[in-house]
């Protein structure tokens, strides 16, 4: 793409360096191995947040990503545990299943706008949790536990992905897997936003009537975007389940859906990489505040409110003028 500036190339290079070289080095030096889990979580939550950001791009406030993450986690877990399918097949299957659910639900609800869409997606999260509690296949409140680790994959006898169960520590393997998935997600998101689909989304975000007058099939584009968004949610959720080796109805709740939304807002809705930054800051912020014990939530919410009060356009808006990454 000719519109990638050298500055952007440098930023991407720095990001890759930070993920694959600097972070492991620092963790190795400090011995804080628990940071691998934190960073892996950030990467996976950032994937789900990317989906939420995409629905913002067509002008819909999506507070239902927790539902799709939970669906993805259950689909993968059920496929691996009950049908013995390889995790690496269950992962895309989870994404696709979440996308299909999104299409079915999207037909009626994508016509809603503004707070109406926000409300119904929030309700959706709660309903999926309740459904997981009620259905026999999801095993109710007990959930699905002791999910086997991802098995190895080899093509024509050449190993492509090693067997996670044979590893001494899966932390690093999961970290790399999550980061690669996250990079793929954001590369796809960047490409999508800068391709014609992205331009059509922008036109819909700004004026749906005008968009339909120039021949944009707005209900179709909405559906496609909601499906892609939920695909990201499903992938993130499935990967999470695999790392935790368990899924419960409470694995993704309303608070998670709200957090996905907060990640996007906080990072800034105008920037493709906003949700990634938002997730990192929120999750790390939450983690760092752990030392505060019972005051954790209090301090966290006060900081959150202060940010909204004084930086209404998100964290990345601070560096406007230095050429935002859009």
């Amino acid at each position: 793409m000719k519109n990638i500036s050298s500055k952007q190339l440098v930023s991407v290079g720095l990001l890759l360096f930070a993920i694959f070289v600097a972070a492991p080095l620092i963790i190795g030096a400090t011995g804080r191995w628990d940071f691998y889990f934190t960073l892996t979580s950030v990467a996976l939550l950032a994937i789900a947040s990317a989906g939420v950001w995409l629905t913002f791009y067509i002008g819909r406030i999506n507070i239902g990503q927790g539902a799709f993450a939970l669906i993805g986690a259950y689909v993968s877990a059920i496929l691996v545990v009950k049908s013995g399918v390889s995790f690496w097949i269950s992962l895309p299957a989870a994404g696709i299943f979440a996308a299909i659910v999104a299409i079915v639900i999207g037909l009626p609800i994508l016509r809603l706008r503004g707070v109406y869409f926000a409300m119904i997606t929030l309700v959706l999260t709660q309903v999926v949790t309740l459904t997981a509690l009620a259905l026999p296949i999801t095993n109710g409140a007990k959930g699905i536990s002791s999910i086997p680790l991802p098995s190895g994959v080899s093509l024509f006898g050449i190993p492509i992905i090693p067997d996670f169960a044979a590893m001494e520590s899966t932390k690093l393997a999961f970290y790399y897997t999550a980061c690669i998935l996250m990079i793929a997600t954001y590369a796809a998101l960047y490409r999508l936003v800068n391709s014609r689909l992205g331009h059509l989304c922008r036109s819909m975000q700004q004026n749906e009537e005008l968009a339909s007058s120039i021949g944009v099939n707005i209900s179709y584009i909405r559906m496609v975007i909601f499906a892609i968004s939920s695909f990201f949610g499903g992938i993130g959720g499935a990967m999470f389940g695999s790392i935790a080796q368990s899924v419960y109805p409470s694995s993704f709740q309303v608070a998670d859906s709200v957090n996905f939304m907060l990640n996007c807002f906080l990072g800034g809705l105008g920037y493709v990489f906003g949700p990634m930054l938002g997730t990192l800051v929120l999750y790390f912020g939450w983690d760092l505040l752990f030392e505060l014990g019972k005051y954790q939530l209090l301090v966290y919410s006060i900081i959150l409110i202060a940010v909204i009060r004084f930086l209404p356009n998100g964290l990345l808006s601070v560096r406007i003028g230095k050429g935002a990454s859009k």
Partner: protein
Amino acid sequence: MEQILANGIYLGSQYAMIALGLTLIFALMNVLNFAHGQMYVIGGFVTYTFYGQWGVPFVLALVMSCVTLAIIGALIEKFLFAPVIKGSAREESTMLLAAGIAFLLDALILLIFGEKQRGVPKIVDGVFNYDFRLIMPYDRILICVLAILSIVAFIGLMQYSKTGRALRALAQDRIAAQLMGVNVDRYSMIGFALGAMLAGLVGGLLVTITGVNLGMGGATSIKAFMMVMIGGAGVISGAIWGGIILGFMEAIGLAVLSQYGDITYLLIFVSLMIFLAIRPQGLMGKPWG
């Protein structure tokens, strides 16, 4: 049958009050108050503290719940929502702020009242039993009557008082209301306080029956959202209908579907989706967009 009807009225009257507060705030400021459930929980804890712990008469404890929430609501509106609404034209910012406030109230509840489930002594003993076809404890009947009286009082206030007229003018058209000489800032604050107070009042009423715990906040908000969507956002009659309909659906679901596990809410959600596909503005809402 009679039992379902009675349960439906009982649940519906509580729900309608919760939805009324939410819809009032939405109508006045176009704010979706995520923290509504938390306000309800605080109302419950205040009544628990005064009535359950300190032995203050129940009615006085209820008044304390109302006052506490009215003050909290007014402060939140004045120092958080009003400046954020002025500073940003996008409705997303207020939604984000509301989510932040929900977290903050959760944190405060956790610090002040703890995370344990709390209950209070029964306000009236005894059970009304009509031939074993309709069984209802007297305290539930009393709470139900109090809730209905509160709704009637609220409607009366909105219809006939000066404050109510100003609030309705504000809800209909902010700019027109301003031109007519309504003090928009002041009445926004009053309206928000009133909405929060309703949440607190239901919390105080229901603590006598279900008790109260930290986790109830989110679930209550979600039910309130469903009611508002059924009835139509920002419409008072819609909130009441939404509350009654959800109350009845739950009562019927619990009675009929209990042997199939907890799928009542799944069915309610599916019917809500089908309903919204046909009528996106809800029962009483005005068509839009």
